């Protein structure tokens, strides 16, 4: 049994062993091993050349990685926390996402931008943003997020191997969750969602920090007599329409769960796609359980922000099981 942080560490090490071109850098990733210890011991074992601390500048880190990738390396960079990736937004949006297109494929940017994201760890302001929607809307980026330690390993290996740049979102609150992890790389490919639990009444669509919550909800829902299916998206961009719509067509009902603020959040895209594609199979609107539309709350109040079993169960209740229309938020 290893933690998600350890699984990520193993993925980095294995990627570095398999490919000389893989380099890891960022703030405090060297001697310290990163504030979450994801790069623990890597500098000691692979040397400063392969894993090194940079000056404190996120745009610098990403821009420097663009140059190193142009120069034949495969950089894996760490942004220390979600909100501290914002200084790199221009580099990510205007360069990382577009360089291949701007050069008709003559240059590719096989790089991974690791971003610890979301809350649930008692972090103070600026340390708990769920920033996925800022990346998923940008063509040219792949955006993935593991919900389990096994996926942390598999997805990070795939991300490093990808010829496209990948924004790799790590759910902080799962860093210390333990699991048996196989290093055999037998999992689903990076761009596919997986059904984590089968059920026939309703599909819960979740990712990253909310996968565990969705599974807990499914468990709790059995007491209410609901058989809940849980889909873990894994890849936010591109979106795996096939797996998700197949599930929703089976169940006829769906709830999307994420921790990010709801308004303009990633869940809106899920609702829109699923509704477009499954309208006539839906018995009720696809609903969302999301964070509130407020800045992420402080440690003492964060439980009010994060979707939990109760809120998800409440929302499932509202899926018009008895065919009376409900009016929400109007």
């Amino acid at each position, binding site marked *: 049994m290893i933690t998600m942080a350890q699984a990520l560490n193993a993925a980095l090490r294995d990627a570095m062993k398999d490919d000389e071109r893989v380099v890891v850098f960022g703030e405090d990733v060297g001697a310290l091993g990163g504030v979450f210890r994801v790069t623990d011991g890597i500098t000691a074992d692979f040397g400063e050349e392969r894993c090194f601390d940079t000056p404190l500048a996120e745009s610098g880190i990403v821009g420097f990685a663009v140059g190193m990738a142009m120069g034949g390396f495969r950089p894996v960079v760490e942004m220390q926390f979600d909100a501290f990736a914002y*200084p790199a937004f221009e580099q990510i949006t205007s360069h990382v996402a577009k360089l291949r297109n701007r050069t008709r494929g003559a240059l590719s940017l096989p790089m991974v931008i690791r971003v610890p994201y979301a809350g649930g760890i008692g972090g103070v302001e600026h340390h708990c943003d769920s920033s996925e929607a800022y990346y998923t809307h940008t063509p040219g980026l792949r955006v993935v997020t593991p919900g389990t330690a096994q996926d942390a390993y598999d997805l990070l290996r795939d991300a490093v191997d990808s010829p496209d740049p990948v924004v790799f979102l790590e759910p902080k609150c799962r860093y210390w969750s333990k699991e048996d992890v196989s290093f055999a790389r037998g999992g689903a490919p990076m761009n596919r969602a997986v059904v984590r639990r089968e059920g026939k009444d309703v599909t819960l669509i979740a990712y990253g920090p909310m996968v565990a919550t969705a599974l807990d909800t499914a468990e709790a829902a059995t007491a209410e007599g609901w058989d809940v299916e849980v889909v873990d998206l894994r890849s936010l961009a591109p979106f795996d329409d096939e797996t998700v719509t197949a599930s929703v067509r089976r169940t006829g009902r769906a709830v999307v769960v994420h921790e990010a603020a709801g308004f303009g959040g990633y869940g809106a895209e899920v609702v829109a796609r699923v509704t477009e594609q499954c309208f006539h199979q839906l018995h009720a609107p696809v609903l969302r359980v999301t964070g509130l539309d*407020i800045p992420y709350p*402080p440690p003492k109040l964060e439980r009010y922000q994060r979707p939990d079993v109760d809120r998800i169960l409440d929302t499932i209740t509202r899926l018009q099981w008895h065919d009376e229309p409900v009016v929400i938020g109007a």
Partner: protein
Amino acid sequence: MPSETPAVLLPSEPPVRFVAEDGAPVDRPAGYAEPPVERLREAYRLMVLGRRFDVQATALTKQGRLAVYPSSAGQEACQVASALVLRATDWLFPTYRDSVALVARGLEPGEVLTLLRGDAHCGYDPAVTRVAPQCTPLATQALHATGLAHAMRRRGDDGIALALVGDGATSEGDFHEALNFAAVFKAPVVFFVQNNGYAISVPFEKQSAAPALAYKGVGYGMRSEQVDGNDAVAVLAVLDAAVEHARAGRGPVLVEAHTYRIDAHTNADDATRYRDPAEVEKWRVADPVRRLETYLRARNALSGAEIERFAAEAEAFAQGVRDTINAEPELDPLSLFEHVYAEPTRQLRAQRAQVAAELEAVAG
């Protein structure tokens, strides 16, 4: 047309120092008057208070009373000077590291620790205290300080802004942009870099190849200075001059203090992973509080009785901090919706109603 020649803009070499590590006076650096002794005594009193506060805050993290605390142990000379050189009408722009500066400026310690104890806001009223919320996104506040300084000048106030910045934060683009805006607009702002040798685990050598960070000033056409950051006399002297320069409308100033972060980055950090305890011991010898104490005692400006009195005062202060923080107030979840906008939007009112209903369901 630049108004000053490059040479004028360069910092002193070596850094300005009034008092040696052992507390003995050194030669006076040209251009800086020694601050009056009353001011030094007040600095000493506040440094003792600040250090005690700092120890108390770290202790409160161990008891789970604070979510996190970044200590300023070792940086008391810089912290206290940052408060003392300002008038009540001047603005201070601190980072998460600068709680002691806030305490020295007279803010309520309970308010200073509000955010760190897990509340949603900075605790004090910035408009009243003229202290901006302690800033975490590195170097971003340097721009706010510059804009605010420019605003004061535009309104004809003679206020200045003091922006506190760490060595690591100087690597951020915002630091550069702030210095440039300040110089171009001749904003009355002083950038005070506390180079404490580390940005979390990253030592200064990996942060910059500059001879010293103060050498950045000339590239903006800005006066710059470097100072021994553990010598309270020197820090006060240099910051006083910088503040006066800015207040007189002669433009911004960059000051770098060479100091050291004695504790780990925060209580959550493990500094043994990246630095030699021997290095820390070396810096303990340079301790700013003891240094000032020795200096003042040798000048007969501080008695043993006074030292005891200041220590007792600090002890009482710490007791007050404990009491305040232990009296944990209930936070109202519904307050989360109040200040996102001037008036909660319809959408937020609906969400607040939802949370209120949940709370009632739990309560009832």
